């Protein structure tokens, strides 16, 4: 290995007079300060959004309420993977860990949205902390004489905050959904596995490996998408030591498989149907492409250093788990994002990998931590540059913070009518481009890009209360069919159906809707509340035939359709 210059930074400095590197360092630090201010601003927006959302007692993102149903079922010792063809027609397509972790909250507070959202929000902070930890660790590891602790910390902080600043992370960070805690387990698993391979003591190394694989299993049993990070970990271990990868990979597969088998047996096969069959969904290349374009547009400036770092590791250094992670999850998650029901949230993991790599590039540049293997490529491409290394480094110390600043410019998102953000919006000429007093860099345009992020208002809460009041007018012994579970919880009613699960399984030929359709035909439900009408076609048809719309109530920007039994069903 050789440093880029082959000399210490001090020697380079004296060679080039006073001193191009010092100028680059000073300017770079100042620019990093600007980037930090931008990222802190987005953190403030994020915290304000989370605080606003955590207090809201109904669904914000469709499906949150069903996550709460899962939590409540686990808290009562029941599996949510139940027979969906019989009343109350409820099933769940997600693994259990997120819900199980929330069970103590359910015991203490009952069915509430706030603790699931708070848990997700805290998960995002842990993830950002893990990104900062990785960058900081890499910075210290490769630090040379002129590295300073606070510059390393500054860069680590900016990298972690850059993840929180992504509009995609912002959208889903504080939701009562399991996706973001999966990302937390994914990065924690990789951090632990990397640490494990650095340990010489066999016993201690094994304990760390065990912890790393336990975190991988935790990620997978939070959401299936973590399989791609598991692939990353196994590839990394295989490259570093195939024997260890095979042994630990086999153990990992056996434990994961045993849990899977136990759940399949314990739920009479419904776990298999709902988490496997229901997740084999239609693929849309247009959807995948649209979301990929959004990912590139929003994160382009950070993808540049990430890409450069991967090339560097492949040709001039050892390949780190984070480079493999970036390639694997960007490719595979981009593909998975094209499946029905997927969205921009599938990029939360690739964005984490991007921030890690961009942070490492920056911290290595500032700390003088670049090393190049002597090989055919370094002789052709790097050696000729050694004479101008101080200039290259100085330029990079200015350019890299600028990339973070440009990233901050590309991802502008904030409410435009909530103080103090309204003042900031006025000063910078940022306007509502979503119709919800909110500026989003995508403007809610791309298909499957989450149309959320805007703040909730008193009117939204009042609208939810109005729907609950209508439910309360229905006699307690008459069931109400609601497409969202939150209203049913607030009205103290049984949650009936998980529409999306029914629809997916119906399309897969794995749901017989006869009993539900018969109940609708017999007008057994006193009221129906619809939003997106994500029911199987024949269920939607039975609702239309037997129930008539009386009003629409607007909440969170969506129209909730209120229906009552028709005096005369349609022919």
């Amino acid at each position, binding site marked *: 290995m050789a440093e880029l210059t082959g000399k210490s930074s001090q020697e380079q400095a004296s060679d080039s007079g006073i001193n191009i590197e010092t100028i680059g360092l000073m300017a770079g630090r100042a620019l990093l300060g600007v980037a930090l201010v931008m990222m802190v601003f987005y953190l403030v927006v994020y915290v304000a959004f989370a605080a606003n959302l955590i207090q809201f007692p109904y669904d914000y993102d469709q499906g949150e309420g069903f996550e709460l149903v899962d939590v409540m079922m686990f808290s009562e010792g029941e599996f949510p993977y139940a027979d969906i063809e019989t009343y109350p027609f409820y099933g769940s397509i997600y693994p259990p860990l997120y819900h199980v972790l929330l069970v103590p909250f359910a015991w203490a507070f009952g069915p509430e949205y706030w603790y699931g959202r708070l848990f997700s929000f805290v998960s995002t902070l842990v993830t950002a902390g893990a990104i900062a930890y990785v960058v900081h660790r890499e910075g210290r590891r490769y630090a040379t004489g002129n590295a300073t602790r606070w510059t390393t910390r500054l860069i680590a902080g900016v990298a972690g905050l850059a993840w929180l600043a992504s509009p995609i992370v912002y959208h889903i960070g504080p939701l009562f959904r399991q996706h973001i805690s999966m990302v937390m387990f994914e990065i924690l698993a990789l951090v632990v596995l990397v640490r494990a391979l650095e340990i010489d003591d066999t016993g201690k190394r094994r304990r760390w490996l065990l912890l790393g694989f336990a975190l991988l299993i935790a990620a997978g049993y939070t959401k299936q998408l973590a399989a791609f990070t598991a692939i990353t970990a196994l590839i990394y271990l295989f490259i570093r030591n195939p*024997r260890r990868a*095979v042994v630990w990979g086999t153990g990992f597969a056996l434990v994961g498989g045993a849990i899977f088998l136990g759940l399949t047996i314990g739920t009479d096969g419904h776990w298999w149907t709902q988490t496997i069959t229901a997740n084999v969904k239609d693929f849309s290349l247009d959807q995948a492409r649209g979301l990929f374009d959004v990912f590139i547009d929003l994160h382009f400036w950070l993808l540049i250093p990430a890409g450069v770092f991967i090339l560097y590791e492949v040709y001039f250094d050892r390949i780190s788990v984070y480079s493999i992670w970036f390639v694997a999850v960007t490719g595979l998650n981009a593909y998975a994002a094209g499946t029905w029901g997927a969205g921009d949230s599938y990029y939360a993991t690739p964005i984490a990998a991007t921030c890690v790599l961009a942070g490492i590039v920056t911290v290595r540049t500032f700390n003088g931590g670049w090393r190049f293997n002597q090989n055919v490529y370094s002789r052709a491409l790097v050696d000729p540059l050694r004479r101008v290394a101080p200039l290259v480094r100085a330029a990079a110390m200015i350019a890299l913070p600028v990339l973070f600043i440009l990233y901050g410019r590309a991802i502008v998102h904030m409410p435009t009518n909530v103080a103090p953000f309204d003042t900031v919006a006025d000063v910078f000429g940022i306007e509502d481009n979503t119709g919800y007093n909110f500026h989003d860099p995508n403007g809610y345009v791309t298909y499957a890009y989450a149309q959320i992020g805007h703040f909730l208002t008193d009117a939204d809460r009042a609208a939810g209360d109005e729907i609950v009041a209508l439910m309360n007018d229905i006699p307690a012994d008459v069931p109400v069919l609601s497409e969202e579970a939150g209203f049913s919880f607030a009205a103290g009613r049984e949650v009936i159906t998980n529409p999306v699960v029914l629809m997916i399984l119906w399309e897969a030929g794995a749901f017989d809707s006869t009993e539900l359709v018969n109940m609708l035909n017999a007008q057994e439900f006193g009221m129906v509340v619809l939003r997106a009408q994500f029911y199987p076609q024949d269920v939607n048809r039975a609702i239309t035939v037997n129930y008539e719309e009386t009003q629409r109530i607007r909440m969170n920007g969506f129209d909730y359709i209120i229906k009552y039994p028709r005096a005369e069903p349609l022919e």
Partner: protein
Amino acid sequence: MNLFKDDFQFTKRQLGLLCVGLGMLAFVGLLGLDLVTGGDGGIGPAQRIGLGLTVALVVLGLSLIPLGDDKA
């Protein structure tokens, strides 16, 4: 080369050869998939992306081979 020795680690050359082999295998597999499934519609867009990736993997592998015994 004993893949399962305690201290075995891939070199860049070995990793390159592995990438070339896997890439070629995947390329043939993707084309073969078309034959097995009938392939009436020709090579679809997703399949084209897959084939492109396999070619990229082969190119990457070839470019790693000159790196010799550098640790991967």
